């Protein structure tokens, strides 16, 4: 059942619409649990598109097992998705810094407020992101430490590889996830893959996780695959950041997700003009490379990867 949850006329012969597809069980009943799958707040992050499709395809195959409500919001920022733009085109604003919006505010504030109204009250929300166009991430859920007691148990059921509990920050108070978590609607922020692409393997992994979570919530009664046990990181010291010491072109030497020893070469920053290696990027500790740079050009400070320390990952 497709419904337009927000509509605003644009200047020239077009209406901006935010749409939701609600999938209901065959047998109606009161007080059904509700899960919401939200994606496309950043218009250049497309990993969630596959998840929305695949989730519905599998539900359709076993519709009799659906015992709750599944709401799919595939495009929170349709103008951004259409124009390969992270923020909101024409305004150059990050939609994920506009929440909770204002029903009497500007066009974008109004749209954001309508989204809040519609999603609020869900028993669980997954807000699916895809890092950005520069970095590839393993499937992970990021949780603000303020909400970890509620969210970590849910995230553990979602079949991701990592749960990253991060510190509270005032600037994050204008995100979709924070705004809903603050009013008691639990939101899990998923980061996986890379911007502008679909990594089908990760999408399938997350869809397995959503079914597992739905089963746990009583929304799905069919068979589900067991969820993998995620690494949980709560300490900022668990993660090493690998930032470029200089500008150049980054050529990786290891694969994403590699388990590395201290001092191993992750990649090189090279100068194509002179044909020289400017820097060898080495691991500062033993650990797993859970983020790797996808876009080759770097300037000083560009993030090339993140390493989760071995003692946190727990591998041999």
């Amino acid at each position, binding site marked *: 059942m497709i419904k337009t949850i927000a509509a*605003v006329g644009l200047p020239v012969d077009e209406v901006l619409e935010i749409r939701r597809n609600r999938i209901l069980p065959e047998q109606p009943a009161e007080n059904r649990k509700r899960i919401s799958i939200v994606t496309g707040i950043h218009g250049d992050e497309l990993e969630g598109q596959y998840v929305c499709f695949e989730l519905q395809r599998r539900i359709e195959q076993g519709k009799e097992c659906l015992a709750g409500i599944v709401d799919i919001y595939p495009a929170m920022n349709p103008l951004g998705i259409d124009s390969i733009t992270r*923020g909101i085109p*024409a305004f150059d604003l990050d939609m994920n810094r506009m929440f909770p919006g204002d029903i009497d505010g500007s066009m974008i*504030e109004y749209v954001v407020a309508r989204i809040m109204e519609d999603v609020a009250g869900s028993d669980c929300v997954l807000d699916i992101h895809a890092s950005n166009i520069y970095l590839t991430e393993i499937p992970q859920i990021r949780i603000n430490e303020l909400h970890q007691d509620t969210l970590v148990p849910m995230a553990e059921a979602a079949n991701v590889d990592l749960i990253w509990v991060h510190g509270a920050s005032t600037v994050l108070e204008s995100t979709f996830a924070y705004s809903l978590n603050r009013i008691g609607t639990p939101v899990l922020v998923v980061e996986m893959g890379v911007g502008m692409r679909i990594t089908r393997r990760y999408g399938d992994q997350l869809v397995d996780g959503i079914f597992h979570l739905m089963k746990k919530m009583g929304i799905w009664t069919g068979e589900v695959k067991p969820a993998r046990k995620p690494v949980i990181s709560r300490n900022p010291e668990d993660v090493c*950041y690998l930032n470029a010491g200089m500008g150049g*072109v980054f050529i990786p030497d290891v694969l994403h997700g590699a388990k590395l020893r201290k001092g191993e070469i992750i990649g090189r920053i090279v100068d194509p003009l002179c044909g020289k290696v400017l820097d060898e990027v080495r691991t500062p500790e033993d650990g797993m490379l859970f983020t790797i740079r996808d876009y080759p050009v770097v300037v*000083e*400070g*560009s993030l090339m990867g993140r390493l989760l320390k071995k003692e946190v990952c727990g591998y041999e």
Partner: protein
Amino acid sequence: MNKRIIYELKGIYRDTFRVTGYEFGTGEKSVCIVGSSRGNEVQQIYCCSQLVKKMKQLEEEGRITQGHKILVIPSINPYSMNIQKRFWSTDNTDINRMFPGYNLGETTQRIADGVFREISEYRFGIQFTSFYMPGDFVPHVRLMDEGFSDPETARQFGLPYVIIRRVRPYDTTTLNYNWQVWDTQAFSLYTSTTSRLDRTSAGQAVLAVMNFLSGQGMLKYSIPDGLHSRIVHDEDMVMIKTAKSGIFEPMVKAGEEVRAGQPLANILDPYEGDILETLYAPFGMVVFFVHNEPLTYANTAVVKLIEKY
């Protein structure tokens, strides 16, 4: 005058990214003035260039009071200005959302850190900045309501209005906010425009800084008597919002006094030219802000009215 590099970063195929500062006078770090932080803030760099010219003259004439150092940084983002892009050239991040910065972080965090280390110990900070919505303003000085900055001090700029705005979560990473965290009284100076030059309001901005420096006893400069800014909270302004999207046809200019019932703008059908909506002034006030793009969206505050000065 001492011209020096505040911060630099080597590019791979571009010239080195340089943030250049101009120091006038010697002594305590008294005032730091920052111009454009975004690539389209041409009016803001222009204001600083005019300020540098004026300060050079005043220094040569010995009119900077002993014991005060004044630093002017016309742009902290020349890379984006040169490619006419508002935000950072590679990753589209906003340097003015990266303060206080982080020296081991990503590129714009490092730039913010490098700049902030140089400018965080000044008594006063003045930033020429721009609004995220396209429009023309009445020149004014703006400060945050929870900060270290004082509205009475802001009156020394001698501009018609001092606007006090409520702090929002996304403000906490701006230069203005972080200056105040480090005990600098910070003021944002808005002139009329952003991406095109307005010589008159740039002149007003230079004069406003002269007034301020003179009021603080840092400069020997004759200022007119009777400057008395009106202090207004931003929520006290009257927002005139569109109900329709379409072509925006303004009928007033920023700074103009309007009567109750006066038409302010029309919204036109972009195909047939019919008037979809006329916006009227609900009260006799002054036009503080006018949208300046030819198209507008619905629910947009295209005109803001303020109490008469």
